[in-house]
């Protein structure tokens, strides 16, 4: 299971797919799941919705959700000298921008996010430039040269390879939420007693937009959102501020900025983990939001839970997950989905 998960995470994280530009990721996921599902369709926004039949009819419709988009950039203007002004697509810490490589446009050309060198920055040596000061530099000779390969409205993403390191860790861009997508793919490849639906959503990072329409289409009784969430488990950060820890299994949310999770679902998740000997931890902060915020108020309401893999340096070019947590998340979500289908 782990090899298949990590292979797919490598494939998916190395694709370019900022919010609104998820096509390449969707194509890859479709290739991965086509042979294992009973039906699929793509809706008007680009969400990929798949159904998998079980061995017996399910009592409840269960929808698993993960989002295909990653945070990235959009080119807004190309200056005469050939460098490009840009905005972020989704939330990126301004400190995580300067000095990073990107890929820009349909042609996915190499570029960098640059600014004046430290030697020329005099009294501002430790100040982070504003996004409006930075530019994406694709090494063009001038505007005309740049416009051969990029135009305003083009997307760009971090240029960051998948790397395995340390004690079973993975570094890649877009682990939020390509890891979640890979977990759903892995679940779809297995045979289950009860069938389920999976929504591979678009545009989560810019306001959980895709999740609104896919939830409406599926109209589930229960939904499990599989995400990554921020882990600040480093030196100098008090335990109470760390949110969750790598190596302690998926983090189960009781509340975040978009959703208050049903206590019985939270309890069921922990019970299931305990029964199966799967590591799990509470998410120890009310922070962030997920597609659950769009799913749970859909139609007449959906009982929804978010299960997240602890992720260091989320929304950066070097987000980090622990393999053991990914595998645990996969086992927990699979088992929990079956329980919900039969409740």
């Amino acid at each position, binding site marked *: 299971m782990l090899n298949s998960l990590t292979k797919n995470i490598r494939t998916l994280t190395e694709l370019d797919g900022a919010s609104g530009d998820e096509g390449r990721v969707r194509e890859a996921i479709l290739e991965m799941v086509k042979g294992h599902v009973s039906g699929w369709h793509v809706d008007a926004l680009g969400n990929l919705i798949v159904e998998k039949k079980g061995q017996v009819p399910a009592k409840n419709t269960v929808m698993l959700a993960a989002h295909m988009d990653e945070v990235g950039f959009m080119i807004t203007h190309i*200056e005469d*000298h050939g460098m490009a002004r840009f905005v972020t697509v989704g939330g990126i*810490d*301004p*400190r*995580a921008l*300067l*000095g*990073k*490589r990107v890929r820009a446009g349909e*042609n996915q*050309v*190499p*570029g*960098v*996010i*640059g*600014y*004046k*060198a*430290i*030697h*020329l*920055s005099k009294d501002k*040596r*430790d*100040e*982070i*430039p504003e996004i409006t000061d930075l*530019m994406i*530099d*694709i*090494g*063009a*000779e001038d505007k005309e040269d740049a416009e*051969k390969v990029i135009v305003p409205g083009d997307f760009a993403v971090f*240029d960051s390879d998948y*790397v395995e*390191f*340390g*004690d*079973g*860790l993975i*570094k890649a861009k877009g682990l939020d939420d390509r890891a979640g997508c890979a977990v759903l793919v892995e679940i779809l490849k297995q045979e289950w007693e009860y069938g389920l639906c999976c929504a591979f959503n678009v545009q989560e990072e810019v306001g959980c937009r895709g999740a609104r329409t896919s939830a409406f289409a599926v109209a589930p009784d229960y939904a499990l959102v599989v995400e990554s969430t*921020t882990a*600040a*488990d*480093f*030196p100098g*950060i008090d335990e109470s*501020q760390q949110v969750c820890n790598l190596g302690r299994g998926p983090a189960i949310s009781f509340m975040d900025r978009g959703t208050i999770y049903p206590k019985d679902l939270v309890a069921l998740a922990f019970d299931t983990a305990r029964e199966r000997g799967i590591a799990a931890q509470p998410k120890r*902060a009310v922070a*962030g939001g997920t597609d659950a915020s769009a799913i749970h108020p859909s139609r007449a309401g959906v009982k929804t839970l978010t299960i997240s893999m602890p992720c*260091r*340096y*989320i929304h*950066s*070019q*070097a987000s*980090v997950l622990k393999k053991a947590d990914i595998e645990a998340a996969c086992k927990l979500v699979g088992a929990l989905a079956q329980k919900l289908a039969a409740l």
Partner: protein
Amino acid sequence: MSKEALKELIFRLAQAAGVSGDEAEAVEAARAELAQYGKTRTDALGNLIGEIAPFKEGRPHILLDAHIDEVGLIVTGICDGGFLRVDNAAGVDTRILSTADVTVHAKEKLFGVISAKPPHLSDAKEYKKAVKLTDTYVDTGLSREECERLVTLGDRITLNGVPRETASGRIISKALDNRICCAAILRCLELLQDKALDCGLTVLFSTREESGGQGARAAAFGVDPTHAIVVDTTLADGVYESGCHYEIGKGPTIGYAPILDRRMSQELMALAEENNIPYAIEAMGRGTGTNADDIVTTREGVITGVISIPERYAHMPIEMADLGDVENAARLMAAYVEKIASRT
């Protein structure tokens, strides 16, 4: 050497590790290229010296120098959870550190990520400041025990600035400062290889420039040249209104400064004109901020000049340069060597 071969050479040199004081890997990469042109040796400070044309009594002895060390970090402590405490080893731009990935040169090469406090723990003021090195950790993902087994305090850390070629053929990599200048010297040697030179010619890939020029100072004493050209990078940041006037793609710069030999500067300029080599004049008021400042006062003095290759984003992992500038710097140096060699 084709443009493609020059690019590959630069990437080979730039991707080798060589933080100030720990340049061995980069020196070996350069030695592999230098050995075809002459005998090579290293000295007490790790400098790589290539004897291209032997010293002749009564004839000029030219030294071509490019520093081979790069900026990086140094390990100062090991913490629980495999996090390393670090400090700057010569000039990394700390504004780029947050979430950058690095290589720790320990008993094995270890991959690491520079940890950063996530937004939910930072207030509005913190967003605007680069991480303080005292608050920065390198996340190796190993246990503390594993780190203690593999990592030694003082191990160097390089930035993972992998090579890329842009759509217009510019190059991106860490350590273009100063490996593009090492490459320019190697290309110059290729241009000179079939010429009989009636002068001594020695190449120096000097260590420890970023930490104060100690390498070049010692090596120049050992080599004892009459003339020296120092090749270093210069800042090309025109678009950011930083008061900098140079740009990539417009040729190398020729240095003019009180400590440099004015006649040599003028000769370089005349040679550039004669040979249709694009260039800019880089006028500096006191020192040059390069090894020239140390070489010029070696023994009884050395006639010294500076040729610089413009690059963007100095001391970041994304340095960018133009191959044409490297080629033109090489041609200019070769023209100068030939001229001095033929001077009676």
